[in-house]
């Protein structure tokens, strides 16, 4: 695997993160590193602290203990879980792309094209379908040419086909922009197919490693139960196809 070989200094490193909110321990002793062009996926049941971890990495939550280290020159592109746009706020796609900083027209067009929504520049945000909306969020995250792309369950509310297309796009984008990707996901078998490194979270990191290792670990099977057998089957099927 080319990605595991090009290690070196990580782009982003979290060390012994611990987060309490309102006296409640949400996350404990989290260590993670994100390297160049690597796709790291966070999985875990609801309430396991996935979104909290992502918010801490982008600086929206201050950790109670531990630290997040990132080279100041590195840029983060962030795709939120969903964005509630108040109906009283008029917003076109191209205006949204230029928030908070203005960009060249060609750059906006390029980012939209790379996210697969080049025709939507003049559309109103409120008229987009769920899939188009997520693509526009992705395009906005791409416009600053990020070194790290962070996605927080960006496929929520999309249908099966939409989810598969979206992840295919992420793979393409990773190659075009040569950026590292950190994403939270519920779609277990997509995760198993695209990730280089999987972190299984439940208040702390209960197992991590290459997808096949995580999928066969007892901790993971305890958390995801019956879904795992199926996921593992899909994964092994693919492996077999590759070998043959």
């Amino acid at each position, binding site marked *: 695997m080319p990605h595991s070989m090009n290690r070196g200094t990580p782009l982003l490193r979290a060390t012994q993160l611990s987060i309490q909110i309102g006296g409640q321990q949400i996350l404990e002793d989290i260590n993670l590193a994100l390297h160049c062009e690597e796709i790291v996926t966070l999985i875990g049941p609801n309430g396991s602290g996935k979104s909290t971890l992502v918010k801490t990495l982008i600086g929206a939550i201050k950790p109670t203990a531990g630290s997040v280290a990132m080279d100041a020159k590195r840029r983060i592109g962030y795709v939120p879980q969903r964005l509630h746009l108040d109906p009283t706020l008029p917003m076109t796609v191209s205006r949204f792309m230029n*928030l908070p900083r203005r960009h060249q027209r060609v750059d906006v067009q390029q980012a939209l094209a790379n996210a697969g929504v080049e025709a939507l520049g003049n559309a109103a945000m409120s008229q987009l379908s769920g899939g188009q909306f997520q693509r526009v969020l992705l395009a906005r995250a791409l416009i600053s040419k990020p070194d790290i792309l962070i996605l927080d369950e960006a496929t929520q509310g999309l249908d099966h086909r939409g989810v598969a297309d979206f992840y295919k796009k992420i793979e393409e984008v990773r190659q075009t922009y040569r950026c590292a990707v950190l994403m939270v996901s519920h779609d277990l078998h997509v995760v198993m197919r695209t990730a280089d490194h999987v972190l299984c979270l439940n208040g702390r990191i209960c197992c991590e490693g290459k997808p096949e290792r995580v999928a066969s670990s007892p901790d993971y099977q305890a958390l995801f139960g019956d879904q795992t057998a199926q996921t593992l089957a899909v994964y092994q099927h693919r492996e077999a196809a590759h070998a043959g």
Partner: protein
Amino acid sequence: MLDDFMWRAALAGVFVGLAAAPLGCFVVWRRMAYFGDATAHAAILGVAMALMFNLSIFAGVLIVSLTMAACVTMLSGRGYAMDTLLGVMAHSALAVGLVAVSFISGIRVDLNAYLFGDILAVGKNDLWVIGGGTLLVLGLLFWRWSALLTATLSDELAHASGIQPRREQLALTLSLAVVVAVALKVVGALLIAALLIIPAATARPFCRTPEIMALVAAAIATLSVTSGLRAAYFFDTPTGPTIVSLAAGLFLLSTIITQGWQYLRQR
């Protein structure tokens, strides 16, 4: 020109409309209507304080409104049911203010002027204060515009772009207190929130971007103020309520036009 009270009134009204309209857009987008009400109603308490301690009305109102806005902002992060809390604060501020004014003896206080405005009594000094306040608010909004918009869309999106949503909220809080202080003389404490919200709500259906909405709202506010002033003079009605009635009429017109158009398009 400034010696004519009608010109002074018109200028004061246009200034206040220009400051209130873009700020009002944020009040609408962020669902802060009650927040505006609480801050505006606190102005009456500010009047009482100013009379008690012999401050200028402007300073008294600014201090109390700022305190009120800051209190609400701080409490808002602490898990109270926000609309209940703001309802309590908005009406308590008004009630306590009215009681406080009634305690001040010796000075005849024209309460109506503070509740409903007294735009025809705007003096040259008032005009300077109102103009200065307007410039301050417009400058602050212009400076923070993109950051404010991003923070309005989503806290996380703002953080990821290096913007601190709490700091942007502070800019809005400050602007709101200044607008309340300068608008008190023009439309009065009870109707300031109307001047914030109605032009923005009227503009919404005709706009595709936030900037256009702010501009259209400013134009609608200016139109309401100037025509309201003329109408009040002509019909001899109270000025503040006349201005707001005209704004409400424009809102109704905008709603009928857009709803009618949608109805026709669907047929």
